[in-house]
Each structure stands twice: as C-alpha cells, then as structure tokens.
C-alpha cells in the first residue's frame, strides 16, 4: 500500500484556503440524502456530529456512556490554545504553528499543523457564542495563561474545567440537533466492527450495552472519534471506559495505524499509591505557571519539605532550562522527573515522586489569588491524598495521559479506508512525537467544527455510492463474527478476571514501553505479552450472560484488543531507531540526556498495516517534508 497524504500545493499559509475552495460541494438540498455515522461524542465527535447536522446531513451518533456529555474530553483541565494574540505578546498563527511542530519534535505534518493554528482562533469565537464561560479580566475581556512549550500566553481557560465547559458547548450544540431530529443519538453502544462494502466504509456493528443486542448501522460515510489508547497501560489518566477497540477493529479491516509508540507521559500526576488503584489523576500543567518543581539535592535527605532550606533543594528544571524553566514541554519534564527518581532523589513513601511547590507563589501573590486560579485542583489533590497543598508541596509523578499515535489520516482526515474519517485523539496527525499542553482541545474542536464539515462534503460529492442497507451480506457476516467472539469469551470460564490480565499487561507496558525504552526489554515484553494473550484466551473468567447489561464482558472485549494492540506499539518502538518526543530509546540520546533524533533516516510517519493474526504488521513509510521550518535539536534552555 502507498500512502498519499494529499497535501495541497502552494505556500503553507494558503493551502487550507485554497483546498477549501477546490473541494467539491454537496448542495444544501442534497445533504439530507446522506447518512453519516459518527462514533464518539467527545470534543471531536460531538462537534462533528452537531456541525454535520447543522449543515443538513442525517447523523447517527454513538457513545459508550449513558450520555454524550460524559466523553472523556470532559476531564481536560487546563485550557485551549489559540493564536489570538490578545495579550499583545508576539503571538501569531505562525508562532503557534512553529511551537506545535517544534513541540512535537518535528514528527508532524507542516500543513496539518498550520491549518490547526489557523482554525484555533475560530474555535474561541465559536465557543464564546455557544456560552462557554471562559475566564475574563475585570474589563470583561478574555483572559489567558501560559502552558508548556510556549513563551507567549495563549491558553484560554474556564477555571480548571476547560474541557468540561468546551464539551458542554459541543454537547449543547449536539443536543439542539438531537431535539431537531437531525441527529439520532445512540448512547450505551460499543462499536465492535467496521463494515466495508466495495472498498468503502459503509457502516458499523455495535453492541447495545443494556440489552446485549448486536446492531447493524449503515451510512454513506463513517467518522471515528473514539479517543486514544492510553489505557493499554492499565493505569493512566484516561477514563475507565476509554479503549482502543473501535480504532483497532478499523485497523483489522484495513485502516493503517500510525506511530503507535508515540505516547505522552504527563509530568504532573498524583503518584501511584496502592495495588488496588484503578486510575491516575492528573494535576493540570497550568500548575507549572506558579508551582516550582524540586527534589532534595542529597538523596539521603529525608527531612520534611518545609525543613529543607532553599540551598539544599535542586530546582532541576529551572537549573537545566533557564529560559523555559518549569514550563518545558511534557516529555522533557517527565523524563527529568524520572531521572531524578532514578538517581534516588525521589520523595514520599514510594520515592517515586517530586515536589511541586507553591510556597513562593503564595508568598508573592497571596493565597486568595492562587486559590482563584487553581482552587478546584488543590481541592482534588487534597481529597485524594489527604494533604493540604497550600501548606505542604504537592507530590507528583508522571503518568500516561495521551496518545499521539492513532489511525493514519490524510489531509482530509480520511483514513486509508475510503469513506472512513478519523478525528481528534483517535487520529495521529497534528502532534508529532509529543503534544503540547492545551493543544488536544484545540485539535478535537478544529477537526469537528471546521475541518470535517468541508472535507467530508468533498468526499461525498466526488463519489457515486451504491445503495447499501444494513441487510447487506457484509453486515450479516460481521454481526456473526462479533457474536462468535462474544460466545468464545463467555465460554472460556477460566480462573482470572479481565482486570487481572489488564493490570499485568499495563505493568509490562509501563516498565518496558513507557518513559524510557531499550531494545532488550521491548523484545522481552513482546514475548511476555504474546504469552499473556494466549493465557487470556484460555483462562479468562467472565461472569454473567451475553444478552444482558454485563460490564465484565465489556471490559474483557477491550482487554482482548489491548493485548493485541500492545504488540504493535512495541513493534513500532523497536523499528524507530531514534529518540524523539515521547519515544525515548536509551540508545539514542545526546550527551545531556535529551532525545536524539535521526532526521536523515527517521523523518517519517511509521504506519502499520494489518496482515493477519500472529503476523507482524507491514511497515509503510510516509516521509515528512519540512519546507518552512528548519529541523533543529529542540532546545528549551
């Protein structure tokens, strides 16, 4: 297979305008003749479903939770970037574009990122019009804060609940279309398969999670916005239901998967504290605006943090990166935290934590101001840890947070399967090897509100699609396969729960395919995961029945896919003979322990095509061409 990114010609800043003009249009009266399936209701899926319905398409929208308002975008805390330059501090579309390409360690497409930066400003206007209560200054104008990887203040926010407010904006637009009958909403549904007819995506198979019934749904195009695969690590900041199944099923039907090894480990999370733990909680990156990260200089120093004088503390980020200080990008901050803990300087019971200290900020600005900025985050920290961060420094440690990899898409956000579009975290396109803070919300909403409405029209207008209903043999066949898989899972009746397998898989991935990787451990993990997968299919224990509300069965299906998908992540990590962004192989580092890229041989997207179970996927290369930015060693000094 050859991958054509279909990047429009012409100067970078004109590509999107020109492309939008050149895309074919579906006339307003004809839009109602098209059915579009959107899977997912997060920022990308929710905004896409609402906007496509506003345009006149018939939309069928699916989500796994009981309501579209609960998609995990809701948990994003800190903010959303936009090149408004309201602060008059030198921001521009070009600067946001440049920061994002550099932040991604030069492994993203220039054209996609530039479009993202262009659309960023429209997103803010759209959200304000919908009633998103962004933070404002006394004069009533929008307020901004700073995020990692940038030297300008361009992050818009709604307290520590920006994702919630943006999602409720998209959800309200979606609800309006549901009320108007233009979107048919299917909650508590899990996508189990993609249906391709004559080479084009024409529908999906889902399981109704309440009744257990397998349903077929046909359409003229399918849009996946099903989020990332961070839960392959078991412990992550993702919601419990976040999973790879929809994307992985599409992969098994021919959509190629790009850069699966690019995972983001977020530097500021509440550390792991027990083996009963089910998930990790993020503390927003915005805290690094005012919090200072430090460890004791002497590993043997076990004094309480307040008793350690400044002279005995190492503010290692400020020391090593004076110009960005505590606001270095996430991959850099995470790796440095690991480095300090590996050197024995970790703090707390487990010694797998560093301090994030607000004492100086509270002295400087007063407790009230700090409370107004971060009140809900401080409260959340206290609830979980039983410690008061106004009085004692927070303890934080990196945790899996976001996955830059995803289904491969071209400039139109179409996957390698015609008629299958992929939006938001589920695709791979905009963040390269590392995503900057406050950029996920921007990408999800740009894809949904401002990209897919144009590009899906271009696809539909350019194709003559046969009539396909859910009675087509492909639907019957895939339904049968989905049912057989469920029957197989329930028939095993082994001795270990799905969660138990998941926890073991997560441990293997975190230890061997996490913040730092090496060939030997990756290879070893691959073998162990294969064995674990084999054991799963002989020894998993799933209680309850099929045609029922059965959460154990749901989880088992997801774990089965994670077990297969983990292997592709490792294959990708082994194949990338360099370090970049979130992928750090110990063998490739600079003298200062920074990621060492190999631009000559690895300036490309690694895409993987499914070739059958128990076979390695086939590698497909999409070279990355940089015409506008110079590839440099990322420096945040």
């Amino acid at each position: 297979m050859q991958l054509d990114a279909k990047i429009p010609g012409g100067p970078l800043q004109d590509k999107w305008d020109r492309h939008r003009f050149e895309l074919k249009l579906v006339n307003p009266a004809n839009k109602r003749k098209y059915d579009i399936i959107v899977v997912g209701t997060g920022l990308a899926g929710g905004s896409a479903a609402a906007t496509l319905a506003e345009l006149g398409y018939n939309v069928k929208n699916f989500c796994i939770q009981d309501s579209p308002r609960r998609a995990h975008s809701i948990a994003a805390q800190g903010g959303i970037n936009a090149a408004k330059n309201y602060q008059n501090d030198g921001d521009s579309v070009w600067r946001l574009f440049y920061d994002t390409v550099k932040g991604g360690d030069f492994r993203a497409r220039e054209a996609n990122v530039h479009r993202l930066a262009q659309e960023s400003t429209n997103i803010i206007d759209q959200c304000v019009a919908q009633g998103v209560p962004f933070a404002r200054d006394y004069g009533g104008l929008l307020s901004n804060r700073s995020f990692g990887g940038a030297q300008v203040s361009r992050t818009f926010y709604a307290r520590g609940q920006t994702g919630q407010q943006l999602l409720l904006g998209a959800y309200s637009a979606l609800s309006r279309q549901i009320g108007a009958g233009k979107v048919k909403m299917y909650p508590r549904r899990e996508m189990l398969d993609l249906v391709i007819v004559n080479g084009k995506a024409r529908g999906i198979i889902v399981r109704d999670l309440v009744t257990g019934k397998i349903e077929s749904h046909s359409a003229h195009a399918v849009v996946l916005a099903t989020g990332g695969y961070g839960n392959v690590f078991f412990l992550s900041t993702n919601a419990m239901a976040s999973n790879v199944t929809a994307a992985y099923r599409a992969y098994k039907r021919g959509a190629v998967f790009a850069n699966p090894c690019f995972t983001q480990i977020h530097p500021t999370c509440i550390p792991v504290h027990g083996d009963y733990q089910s998930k990790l909680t993020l503390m927003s990156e915005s805290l690094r605006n005012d919090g200072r990260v430090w460890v004791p200089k002497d590993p043997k120093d076990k004094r309480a943090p307040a008793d350690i004088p400044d002279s005995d503390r190492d503010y290692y980020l400020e020391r090593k990166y004076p110009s960005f200080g505590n606001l270095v990008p996430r991959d850099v901050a995470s790796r440095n935290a690991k480095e300090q803990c590996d050197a024995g300087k970790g703090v707390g019971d487990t010694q797998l934590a560093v301090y994030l200290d607000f004492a100086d900020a509270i002295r400087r600005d007063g407790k009230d101001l700090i409370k107004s900025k971060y009140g809900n985050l401080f409260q959340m920290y206290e609830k979980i840890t039983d410690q008061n961060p106004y009085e004692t420094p927070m303890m934080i440690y990196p945790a899996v947070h976001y996955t830059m990899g995803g289904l491969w898409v071209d400039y139109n956000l179409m996957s390698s399967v015609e008629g299958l579009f992929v939006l938001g975290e589920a695709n791979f396109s905009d963040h390269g090897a590392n995503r900057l803070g406050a950029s996920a919300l921007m990408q999800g909403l740009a894809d949904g509100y401002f990209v897919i409405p144009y590009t899906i029209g271009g696809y539909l207008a350019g194709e003559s699609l046969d009539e396909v209903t859910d009675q087509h043999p492909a639907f019957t066949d895939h339904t049968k396969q989905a049912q057989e898989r469920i029957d197989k899972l329930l028939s095993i009746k082994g001795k270990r729960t799905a969660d138990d397998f998941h926890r073991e898989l997560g441990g293997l991935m975190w230890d061997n395919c996490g913040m730092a990787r090496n060939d030997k451990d990756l290879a070893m993990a691959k073998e162990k995961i294969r064995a674990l997968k084999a054991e799963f299919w002989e020894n998993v224990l799933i209680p309850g029945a099929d045609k029922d509300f059965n959460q154990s069965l749901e989880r088992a299906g997801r774990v089965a896919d994670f077990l297969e998908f983990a292997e592709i992540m490792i294959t990708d990590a082994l194949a990338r003979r360099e370090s970049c962004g979130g992928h750090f192989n110990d063998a490739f580092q600079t003298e200062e322990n920074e990621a060492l890229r190999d631009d000559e041989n690895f300036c490309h997207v690694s895409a993987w095509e499914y070739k059958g179970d128990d076979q390695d996927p086939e590698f497909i290369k999409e070279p990355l061409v940089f015409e506008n930015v110079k590839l440099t060693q990322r420096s945040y000094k």
Partner: protein
Amino acid sequence: MTTAKTINLNLKVWRQNGPKDKGRFEEYRASDISTDSSFLEMLDVVNEKLTIEGKEPIAFDHDCREGICGMCGTVINGRPHGPEKGTTLCQLHMRHFSDGDTIAIEPWRARAFKVIKDLVVDRSPLDKLIQTAGYISANAGGCPDGNAVPIPQEIAEKSMDAAACIGCGACVASCPNASAMLFVGAKVSHLGLLPQGKPEAAMRAISMVREMDRLGFGNCGNERECEAECPKEISITNIARLNREFFKASFFSSVM
C-alpha cells in the same frame, strides 16, 4: 500520602436484575480495604472477589473517576454520593469510614429514572431536558470575535458557577419530590446570565420547565436537599433565578 491502613466493612447492596425486577438488598463483606482507596475502588475489590467466587458482580456506573464526568453516583446510607460535602462517589475515600461500619448502597430513586440493573439507572431524561432548550442556537462558523462583547467578570464567574453542573442526578435523587429544578436552574442560569444566552432566555425557561413536568420530575418544595447533596455545590439561588425567568417569560414575553 498518608500511611494507609485497612478496614473491614459490611455492605448492604441493592441488587435488581432489571426495571421489572422487584429488587432486594444483599449483604457482602468488604475485607482489607485500604483507607486510601476510593469508594469505587472498594467496590472493584468486592466485585473481583464475587467474580472469582462465581457470582455476578455488582453493576455500577462510573467512568472518569476524577469527579467530573458525572457518570457515578449511588445513595450511601441515605445520602447521594455519601457523607462528604461537595464530593462525587469516585472522590469519596475510604478514610472517611471506620472499621466495622455497615454501609447501605442504593441506586438513585426517582420516578423519572428507571433502574437498568443494580445501581445503574437511566438518566436520559436529563439529556432530554437539554435537548428541549438547554443551548444557545449558534451554528458553527461566522461567530463574532470572542472579545466583541465584553462580559463583566462577576457575570462570567456566576455563569461558570452554574455551568459546573456535572449532570449526575444527585439533586433529583435527594429531592423528596424527585425534582430536577436545580439541574434546570443551573442551565437556565449558566446560559441566561451571559449576553449570548439572552435572546432565547424566555423560550428556554418555559420549554425546560414544561419538559420537566412531562418527563415525570416533581416540583421544588424548598427542601434544599439538592443544594446540600450537589457534588459541585451548585447554589439553590439558581432555582430562584429559574423561577424569576419563568415568571418573567410567562408574563412579559411573546413566547407563551
């Protein structure tokens, strides 16, 4: 972290196979529960044990486990989301319980919310309320610059206070009338306070109140249980604002 200890608990859990099943309490023992674990993690431990013993685990809704998605929620010893103020069930930690405690766990009980299984209920009526009018009609594209209309900071903050609602349904579960007035009041306040939400304010208040009646929610009796149990501490003044908006719309607008 604090030095964790473990406790043992007696659980009385509501089990119900479906909306038509009568349902009953069943008793379970939760042993060696770390006080640092959350309430849902305690239920995970119980469920793992039930599964291994060949029994069916307890069905309960949950997702983000960081207090923002609104998916979790059960009644703990008579109180939605348990005894701690301003806390969702996923953020309720076992350090707030003592060794030997007996804990009764029930689903939300309200006429508008049907039980799906055990502790899981159908909260789609809350979505229906939003679909009626809980939005500002602004299609994607062509919106004015975000700074075109300044919004006084205190108005934006008040709107945000109301917008913090997570739609969990605890207000309905706590209300003797199973009313959704706090939920509707929060939405009417969030949007109606902002200049962008004014054009549809009258229609919004009237439509949402009518839909609430139609869906089988009761009316407000000023018991204030909703405010006391709301995990996001949404103020009952939002109900007062809803009433004002509703009367204003009924008497002075052309929307009726």
